[in-house]
């Protein structure tokens, strides 16, 4: 599923239909200048925002790992992917690239998490006129109902009226990960995070996909936190 991230050679896999709708086209080698101190997740978020680089993050068994590891970082016109790898590496995360999205995988990813990410949805109907955060919620619903087989899925999502509304077209039978990658590759880019719903998650019914758009003005620390839920 994953391929080791190459700093110098990056293969972009594109989906024509998505590009036509305004898929983010980050620079081939986005560079950032950044001085940051704090948790790894905070710095990762800031690098992504500045480089407009689509990112996927999986919180593993030790879901607080990225929020516990801290450090001071001083990047000066450096390659954003390289920076991500360095920061994630402090928490023993592996940085790979999938379909233009930098995927940060924890060392303690659970087998069922991988199953969830690889689960394919037949006749995926896409998402219409929704914010990225709402798409994350809807994707969570697909996982919890389609994989976790929960009887009812409900959510209540506060959002900013200025948030950008976008659409993701139907796809053949995409996996969870592919859907998430496509979402964060839309207008302006973003970050998706697979996190537990409860402290001791048991499977797909306990999974949440949270998505933050770089173009919207979220409280990044709140959305991209490591706490369950």
């Amino acid at each position, binding site marked *: 599923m994953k391929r080791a991230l190459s700093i110098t050679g990056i293969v972009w896999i594109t989906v024509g239909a998505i590009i036509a709708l305004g898929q983010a086209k980050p620079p081939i080698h986005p560079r950032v200048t950044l001085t940051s101190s704090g948790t790894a997740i905070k710095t990762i978020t800031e690098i992504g925002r500045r480089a407009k680089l689509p990112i996927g993050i999986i919180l593993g068994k030790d879901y607080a790992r990225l929020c516990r590891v801290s450090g001071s970082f001083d990047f000066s016109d450096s390659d954003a992917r390289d920076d991500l790898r360095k920061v994630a590496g402090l928490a023993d995360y592996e940085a790979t690239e999938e379909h233009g999205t930098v995927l940060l995988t924890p060392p303690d990813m659970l087998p069922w998490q991988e199953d969830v990410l690889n689960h394919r949805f037949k006749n995926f109907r896409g998402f219409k006129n929704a914010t990225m955060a709402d798409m994350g919620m809807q994707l969570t619903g697909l996982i919890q109902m389609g994989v976790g087989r*929960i009887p*009812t*899925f409900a*959510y209540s999502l*506060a*959002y900013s009226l200025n948030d950008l509304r976008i659409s993701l077209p139907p796809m053949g039978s995409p996996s969870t990960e592919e859907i998430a990658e496509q979402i964060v590759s839309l207008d302006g880019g973003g970050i998706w995070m697979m996190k537990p719903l409860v402290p001791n998650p048991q499977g797909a019914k306990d999974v949440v996909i949270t998505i933050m758009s770089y173009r919207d003005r979220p409280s990044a620390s709140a959305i991209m936190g490591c706490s369950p839920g």
Partner: protein
Amino acid sequence: MGIRSRRYLIPRAAFAGIAISLLAVIAAAQQPRVLAPHDPIAPEAKTHFQLRSVPGSIAGGPWIVDAHDQSILYLKNVVENASITVAPVLHLSDGTKYQLPAVQLAPSGIAKVDIGASLESMGIAPLATLSGWVEIQYNWPWEPLCAYLRVVDLTRSMVFSFGFSAPGPLSSQAEKSASQVREGMWWKQEKNVTGFLTLANTTPKAMNATVQIEGNLGAVLGSHTITVPPQGMTTLDLLELQTAATKEGGIRITYVGAPDALLINGGLEDVGVGYSANLPFAAPERTPPKGAHAIIPQSFAELGLMTGQADPYMSFPAGTIFTPYSLLRNVSLSPITVTPALWWMQGAAPTSFQLPSIRLLPSQTYRLDMPSLLASAGLKDFSGSLNMVFDTQGQTGLLMAAGSVDKTNTYVFEVASRGVVKSAGKSLSYWSTGNGDDTMVTIWNPADEEQTFIFRLVFAGGHYDDLMTLGPRATAMFDISDIIRTAGADAEGNIIPPGTQEGSAKIVGIEAENQNILLAVDSGIYNVRKATCYTNCPTCDGSTLFSILFDPFGVAINEQTQESFTAQWNTGSQYDYTTNASWNSSNTSVATVQTGLVNGISAGDITLSAGYSDVPLYAPNYCAPSGCPLFGGGSGSAPGTVQVPTADPIQWDNSNVANSCDPGYSGWIRDVTKQVVDQTGAGILASYQQMAESYTIQSDGLHMGNIQTGQGSTNASGMFGDTYRVCSTYCTGSATTSTTQHPTDTWNGQTYTLQTNSVVYACTSISINGSISKPQ
């Protein structure tokens, strides 16, 4: 501002070689030191408050049209950043009304309306003398124009100019029924001078007035009862002047009505020699606007009095010799003592001579013996111009008239008395250098410090700035044609286009138009060939309105919000007096305020007020022989609430439809817009309030187990969206899940727990606080 440096230290008029009395220097040395204003200058406001145009009008006159007389209406737009459209209305003496075509005035633009030609265009040929008054209607937040009427008889070298005033709304009944007294003054330059008086009624009802002509000590020479028709005008010939034993005296007019209900004007004339002068009248008593105070001058200046041989630059016939005149009338009920002083330029040095004090009894009119006074000052053979300055020590009730007349009484240069008070910029509504005209400007620096001003000539399509530095007590006299003739490019590269012959002018401090300065200025448009000279009314620029920016305002408890106190300037700019103003909170246990920064202490309502006393108020069309600005200072207030985010009620539904769930599921989606409101239900109009929510489930018929939530922030209206979705396999019956939504609002680092919402999820509806939909 663009500046081309020019030091105006030496008056253009040459002085004859005369000996200056040592007394003059001593007298000058004894005068108290007068400082130029050094008040802080408010910056331009970054955020402008909104204005609402209101209908208004100004009225003036008389106009006279006949075989000899031509009447021209001069209009000047005092607004520099917007065009205005005004509608002149002619009122004939019998009350008949004619609406003239609207006149559009460009920013700072001028326009002239020939009243005779306008009447002719409406088929009204003035076979006999037609006269009346003019009303000019506008729709603007403040009085946006300066206007005056010039009545000229070129064949007989007669000219009068009449200003305008705002009659204002007929307000209270008490004001309508108040007894008004208007005081004027007459004098006879020579024995054949007679006079006329016009009373224009601006109200829709006939008005009675009593006119009393008095001698120089108040003895009644004649009395007339006049009825002025509704919106008409009555002219009274002052026949008493022909037989009066005294050469000067007073005019007292009494009527019942609002202060400006009657427009009172008049003139002195001797048609035989072409003598004409305006009758001066004291301005109606005016009440300072709320928060303002009356500005009472300590002294008055009559600028540019000419004496001796005419300045050769002015092209008068050889042998033209001028004599100044100056008259005072005490229109108060108490004696007034004034101390006059003469100021003139001895080379580049301002020089003064203090004259004996004059005590005026009530109703006394006094003509100064100028030849004797000049002789006492050592100026018997002096040729040039000088200023007469009256120290009044703040006493009020003095009416003044002054000017210069040649020995044939044909050339009359009237000079208005100007109160010496600090002001912002002053504007001259019109200047002309065409058709033999020229415009003489006299500026006096009354301070014992050097001051630098910008004299701005405004003309069609542009302006030109000239820098003027006046030493302590120095006077500058110049003709506009001098500037035009010698002007190159100013500091901004502005030039005066060839052929420019008319426009307006303003004089402001070098730092900004709202800089307080201390100067006296006068101007006259003269035409030697036609033997006419007339003045026009200056406008004292200043504030027209004050506002506290956020009105009403809200501030969160334990939070701060920055208010600002802004003044609307008559020129169109807005200035931020936040740091200058004194601020007050009506209840400091609810909120405190310092330099406009409001601190929310506890939930509740307060009134915030701000005021500043050193800002001059706009004084338009101020032709009365007195000073301007009339008033200074202003204040504003705004109600406010120390707000505590309390609830997030739904404002409207964005969508409320069935949800397209996966096969086997069905459900509902409801998307709403909410607003954060305070304890009073008022919206908290602040962006970036971070909204979050959590849930507790009371009964879970749909087997949800939990409800996912997300976060969003408010926009500037305190609004945010909230999307509720449910998909369930338990939709066969009428199962519902009843929940309590716990919203929180994190604002400026503090989290507020809002009122909970009851949310009931079903497969065919989502009910929020008992309502399944909110009407659009």
